[in-house]
């Protein structure tokens, strides 16, 4: 037979390896093949998934939680402390042989285990022996790494949609295109009803709406995979559902971080309950997802619903108090709000304040409402462009997926798609939000001071003809981008050198 195993111990320098040797020898003596992954301090070479898949049974001899245990899910498993393997390797191998035979003879048991096994074995970047701070960062990174392709795909589709719309519909194209939807009451604006392969407008609308659909997954995917990193498969349901609720409630990516971490911790807690044998089978498919989702979804809506609403109302009232004549100070405040949560509630209040202003009828082309719109738009472009700039200047400070995302962020930022910066902010909230707020506020203030205007509520460079004092608009934007990128690089390099010094 073929076996695989994992060994680990608290110190990771002795028992881990002795147990591995004992198991391998015992298996060999009994005429079997065995590969052991030593999760000790000399680093562990993960067993190739193909070898695991081919194994008849698994032996865990461990004093620490098995890392990435989901890789072994669905196999008959012998699970003991590390010392058992050292003192009695042959007995464990015999147990594994029996477990494998029992599994073959009892297909129902095998099916139950397979149902609890993950599909395809999704990767996480979590090292369960690391400190809590490191672990939290690894949780966040796991969520971010799964979110990044959605940001890139959705953001680029939306930007291409704007671009095409400008060609098809003229200078208001990027605004008019948003009237179209996949399904709309007016059949003329319904892509499903009226798609025509020869209409550029329809193609633009299609690109835009598909991109928007991809963006709908940002917060759920972020939240879902943070929870997955914490709790393995049981975390997925509460994570995704919590994230979707955070999206519905306008809580943004910060809400997604909360639901992800909460969902993961609750799911992990429930999946560790000691339950009666009869219930154990339905834990992973029914009980854990049901309870954890109810708890996370319920808590989030009930506990955070009103505070988020109250926060948004308070901010709106504050802005109305400043009034449209608020000038430089108003620009600073709106800019800071735009840079704070990148599509979350604070950002939304600032954006709504600006877009409501420009719908006032009969405004002069240099009305303060248009300056406010320009300040808000420019400020919303700062964070993604600054991340693009920072990853270009100092790629070593960022992970590989972040660097990839940085390249897409140029286009996203230029298109006023603030979401391009979310992966960076979700992975490292404190530093990124701090630097984003400062740069965005400066840009917002400068736009007001320079008197640049925008008659378009969105679109970035794709609505260039609708922006007044364009060069000053770009100057204000460039200064904010440079400030934010500079602060990010400074904060990240400082912590990198601290980490190096500690190592």
């Amino acid at each position, binding site marked *: 037979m073929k076996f695989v195993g994992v060994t680990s111990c*608290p110190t*990771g*320098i002795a028992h*881990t390896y002795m147990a591995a*040797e004992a198991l391998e020898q015992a298996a060999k003596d009994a005429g079997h093949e065995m590969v052991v992954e030593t999760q000790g*301090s*000399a680093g562990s070479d993960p067993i190739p998934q193909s070898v695991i898949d081919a194994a008849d049974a698994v032996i865990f001899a461990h004093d620490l939680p098995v890392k990435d245990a989901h890789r072994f899910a669905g196999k008959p498993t012998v699970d003991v402390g590390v010392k058992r393997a*050292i003192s009695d390797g042959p007995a464990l191998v015999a147990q594994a042989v029996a477990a494998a035979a029992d599994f073959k003879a009892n297909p129902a048991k095998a099916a139950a285990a397979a149902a609890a096994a993950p599909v395809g074995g999704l990767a996480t970047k979590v090292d369960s022996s690391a400190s809590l701070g490191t672990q939290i960062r690894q949780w966040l990174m796991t969520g971010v790494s799964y979110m990044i392709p959605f940001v890139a795909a959705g953001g680029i589709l939306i930007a291409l949609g704007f671009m095409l719309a400008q060609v098809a519909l003229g200078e208001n194209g990027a605004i008019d295109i948003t009237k179209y939807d996949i399904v709309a009451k007016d059949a003329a604006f319904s892509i499903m009803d009226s798609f025509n392969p020869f209409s550029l407008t329809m193609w633009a609308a299609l690109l835009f709406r598909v991109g928007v659909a991809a963006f709908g997954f940002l917060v759920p995917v972020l939240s879902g995979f943070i929870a997955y990193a914490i709790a393995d498969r049981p975390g997925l349901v509460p994570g995704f559902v919590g994230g979707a609720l955070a999206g519905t409630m306008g809580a943004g990516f910060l809400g997604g971080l909360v639901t992800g971490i909460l969902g993961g911790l609750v799911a992990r807690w429930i999946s560790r309950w000691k339950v009666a044998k009869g219930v154990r089978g339905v834990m992973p498919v029914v009980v854990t997802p049901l309870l954890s989702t109810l708890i996370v979804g319920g808590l989030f809506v009930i506990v955070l619903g009103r505070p988020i609403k109250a926060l948004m109302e308070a901010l709106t009232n504050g802005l109305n108090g400043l009034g449209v004549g608020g000038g430089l100070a108003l620009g600073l405040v709106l800019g800071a709000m735009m840079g704070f949560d990148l599509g979350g509630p604070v950002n939304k209040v600032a954006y709504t304040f600006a877009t409501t202003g420009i719908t006032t009828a009969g405004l002069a082309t240099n009305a303060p409402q248009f300056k406010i719109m320009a300040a808000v738009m420019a400020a919303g472009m700062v964070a993604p462009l600054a991340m693009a700039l920072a990853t270009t200047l100092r790629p070593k400070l960022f992970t590989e997926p972040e660097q990839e995302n940085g390249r897409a962020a140029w286009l996203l930022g230029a298109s006023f798609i603030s979401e391009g910066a979310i992966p960076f902010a979700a992975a490292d909230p404190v530093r990124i939000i701090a630097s984003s707020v400062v740069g965005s506020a400066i840009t917002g203030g400068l736009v007001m001071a320079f008197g640049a205007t925008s008659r378009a509520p969105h679109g970035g460079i794709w609505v260039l003809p609708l922006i007044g004092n364009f060069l000053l608009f770009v100057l204000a934007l460039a200064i904010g981008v440079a400030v934010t990128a500079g602060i990010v690089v400074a904060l990240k390099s400082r912590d990198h050198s601290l980490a190096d010094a500690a190592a």
Partner: protein
Amino acid sequence: MSLISQTQVILDLAAPDRHEATRTLATTLVADGRCTDLDLFLSDVRKREEQMATGLPGGIGIPHARSAGISTPSLVFGRSREGIDWGAEDGPATLIFLIAAPDGGGEAHLAILAKLARKLMRKEFRQALTDAATEAEVVEIIEREVVNA
């Protein structure tokens, strides 16, 4: 620096208990700077022993720790004819391996300790150490089987 030298071999280890034995073994690491803080290292080893005694079936004791008091991955070998109780169920330990690793050291350095740990499970290796007549012979066996293998 290699894992072990002749000064790190005690062929006739005598001590009333395993903590005293550990101290005697660990002291050999101080002179050439392998251990920079003896008390810290001993307390780290003791913490590990309190978690679970490191005695193993077959008369083996493997006190060990990763400690900030250690600068170089090191092995001290002790042999006791009458045996010292190391918490194993089947009797006292006659072969004692004190394994000292620096805290947060590079993986490459720790790989050699991993190799040593695997060797400890080999009967031939343990027998050779039981039979060794001199310190030089012990060092030679370990160098051959672990360091250069």
